[in-house]
């Protein structure tokens, strides 16, 4: 499953394994948009792990970021604003053989789709959820999003946002049954790649918030952190996201954090002086709803018919 099949690792058969094999239509995001970086990372990971295109489904909502599935050559579902997660869960519910990746934006996930976000985390089905968080509504041209920082100006709040922003990591860490919560940045390809890879390997819902630059509407938001990696705090641990030494060296700020420690994860998530990146929390063996929803998928038509006849007979006169 998931292209991690050992047979393929040992002997790459006729399986596709070039980047081109995973590319769909040409990406139409603005030059310099962080979405390109995420797409590149996913293309590379798909190639490296030789994902079978026919068993991979990329599901998204609506937004600039949600155009993502069109740029993949796998199956894709570009549905409704805010509703990627119910669709993804539905796909998983009766098709445990499919690898489901969810692409969502900060408006998509944290505003209109909030209910689904919270409950999908509880369900903990095997999904890889990438939240492309540019702190703004991009597609609809610069409206305040739940993650927009306090005082930040947008077309709907020309004098600045009224609220403290919502922290998607803190919220997710507060949801029971969360099993994989990570954060990364689009402007460090090795960390982005390693985080998505670890998320994809995780069995359960892996939630990755990607700080994503929007050169058009919010260039100033992440520019300081991009220019000065001192504003980024790399969480390291043997159980966390693994970076090659040269890539790791780029991060001047590191903290050792055991991703099994939920309380420590929450403290780190709440820090406002830096952007912690890496794995906040992972729980192996958390309850998986898709193990229940798939019960009975192996029933034969005859089995179904026999059972139905038995049930019908209970209503016999």
């Amino acid at each position, binding site marked *: 499953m998931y292209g991690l099949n050992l047979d393929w690792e040992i002997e790459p058969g006729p399986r596709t394994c070039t980047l081109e094999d995973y590319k769909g239509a040409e990406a139409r995001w603005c030059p310099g948009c962080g979405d390109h970086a995420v797409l590149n990372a996913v293309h590379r990971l798909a190639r490296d792990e030789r994902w079978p295109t026919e068993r991979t489904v990329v599901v998204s909502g609506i937004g600039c970021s949600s155009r993502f599935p*069109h740029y993949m050559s796998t199956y*894709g579902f570009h*549905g409704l604003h805010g509703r990627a997660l119910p669709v993804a869960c539905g796909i998983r519910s009766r098709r445990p053989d499919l690898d489901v990746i969810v692409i969502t934006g900060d408006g998509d996930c944290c505003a209109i789709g909030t209910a689904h976000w919270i409950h999908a985390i509880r369900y903990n089905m095997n999904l890889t959820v990438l939240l492309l968080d540019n702190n703004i509504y991009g597609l609809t041209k610069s409206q305040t999003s739940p993650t927009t920082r306090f005082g930040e100006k947008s077309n709907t709040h020309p004098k600045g946002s009224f609220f403290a922003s919502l922290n998607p990591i803190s919220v997710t860490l507060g949801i029971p049954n969360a099993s994989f919560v990570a954060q990364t940045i689009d402007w460090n390809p090795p960390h982005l790649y390693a985080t998505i890879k670890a998320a994809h390997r995780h069995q359960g819902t892996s939630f990755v918030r990607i700080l994503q630059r929007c050169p058009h509407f919010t260039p100033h938001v992440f520019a300081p952190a991009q220019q000065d990696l001192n504003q980024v705090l790399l969480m390291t641990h043997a159980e966390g996201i693994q970076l090659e030494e040269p890539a790791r060296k780029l991060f001047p700020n590191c903290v050792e954090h055991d991703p099994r420690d939920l309380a420590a994860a929450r403290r780190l998530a709440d820090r406002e002086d830096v952007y912690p990146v890496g794995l906040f929390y992972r729980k192996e063996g958390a309850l998986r709803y898709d193990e229940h929803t798939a019960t009975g998928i*192996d029933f034969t038509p005859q089995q179904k018919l026999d*059972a139905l006849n038995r049930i019908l007979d209970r209503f*016999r006169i």
Partner: protein
Amino acid sequence: MSKELAVASGFSEHRCILLPVDQHIVEIVSDSGEGAQTCGQMFGALCAKSGFGVWTVEIIPAEIEPPARSRAGASGNRIRIGSQPVTNAGDCADLVVAFNEQVVYSRIDAGALRAGTLLFLDNCWASDPDPSIRSMYAEAVEDFLRRGYEVSEIPVQEQCRQYTEDPRRGKNMWVLGMLCALYDLDMDLVRRELAQRFARKGDAVIQKNLALLEGGHNWTVKQVERRFHVPARKPAQPMVVMNGNQALGLGIMAAGIELCSMYPITPATSASHFLASVFEQVGGFVHQAEDEIAAIGFAIGASYAGKTAVTITSGPGLALKTEFLGLAVMAEIPLVVVVVQRGGPSTGLPTKIEQGDLLASLYGSPGDSPKIVLAPATIEECFHFMVLARKLAEEFRGPVIVLSDANLATGQQPFPRPSPSLSWLAPPVDQNDWNPDVPPFAWDPKTGLSKRPVPGQKGGEYVLTGLAHDEHSHVAYESAINQRAMEMRSRKLAVLRSALRPPAVHGDAEGDLLVVGWGSTLGAIEEAVDRLRAEGWRVSSLHLRFLSPLEPGLPEIFARFRRVMTVEINYSDTPGQPYIEEGSRRYAQLATLLRAQTLVDVDCWSRVPGSPLPPGAIVEALRPRLEAITRNREVESCTA
């Protein structure tokens, strides 16, 4: 209707008068929590098993925990039985058993009693320690007598004390025993049924209930002279009896649908309750989502992945699902959506019947979103339409809405046991390679029909999108492509319509008035039409099952009648009221649709009583119209 005959009965030592009746309407009403519903359901099932025609309606309290002895708390069941199949709840009750006098008033308010109704009333209130209750009771009994009911005060509570310390919880079984005596049911059958019903609760519970049942039966045999004899007809084929929501659940399983994704809402939820209790036996799963939007999204996800799914809801839930319904139309995703209608708008009348969601189903999604809409008219059709809906959803690649209502949902009716076949089940997911030369929307230029690739099929990889798209599912904003894609999606409805037969007319194929209905009103409308025809009026009726596309041949059928009108349980303006004139009058929903589609001046009579339309009320509504039409006809023939 019922000729009085004195006949020696089987209970030879007790004199009794046997009244042969070819149909009877029985009501059992109590405070909620006293079990009149259980009693009524069991009595209905027993009557069906005894070979009577049966239709039952639940009497549902307006509140969850209403105060005791209140009109708002009346809870119970109406059971109409007959020697012929019964198709609706009928008019007034012939016999009412009430656990207190206040709940009777709720039935009087609902127009359920008439002069002559036989009213059995628990007399325990006559000796209640509270003097105000005693006087309320005494006043009510006097009032009931004034109203012409035949009141029989009976010691239900007192008798039950012999068998249980808490008679409030046992009265219902005692009353069941009483009814079994009154209608001369086979007590062996009754005992078996009771033992089966309480099997899971253990032997002690069974014994206690049996004692109450026998107690009620014996008391009645000794103390009540009258018996009602409904000639039973043993049906030729095996029969089943169930309510409409159970029929939906069984139909879902018979269709091979393997996922039911829902959010609780009355009166749809009980279908999911039933499914949840049995679905795993056929390998299915009930998903309770976080809201109705998620429920349909989940079902759509499963369907996109090749699995058959249904989402079940009622009006408020349908409203939330409309955006996803539009996506299912746009991206041609098969899906069955069941809407068990209740009173609207907004939270409306949650437990009560209305047919108010027809136009919302047809036109509720923004943009042009042609979809199939069906309405079963009987409980049997609730079953079979699920198989039909699943096939239509797949064949025509889109959502199919099935409109049931609270009347079908909770009513019970016997019907021939379906014989499910393998061909009814959804085929397994096709995982063969897909020919990459065939695009995901290879619309047949004539029919708009196409086949879809399903994840897992190599070569079929595509990105489904709710944006305007071409055959390849590529986002396309070009006007010509948009025009054509709209044509293709719309064409499918016309193709389906071309495969339908014109509906059958009940009564003569021509006449003065044609009554058109849809959904659960079938039985009441036909009974009303039959009564009027017996009076000599030239009236017929027609019942639609396909609302989108509309069944063919309607203009031709309509042309053979002087007037056409619909009878519906939804709102329409009544001509003659302030400001209501031809230009401002809003018609009932099917009438609006028929007027638009046929250009015939279709009139309507519709009401929103929150309860089924009794045939008698329909008769009274139609008669003046028939008189007017006949007068006009005579005037016309004079001037001709």
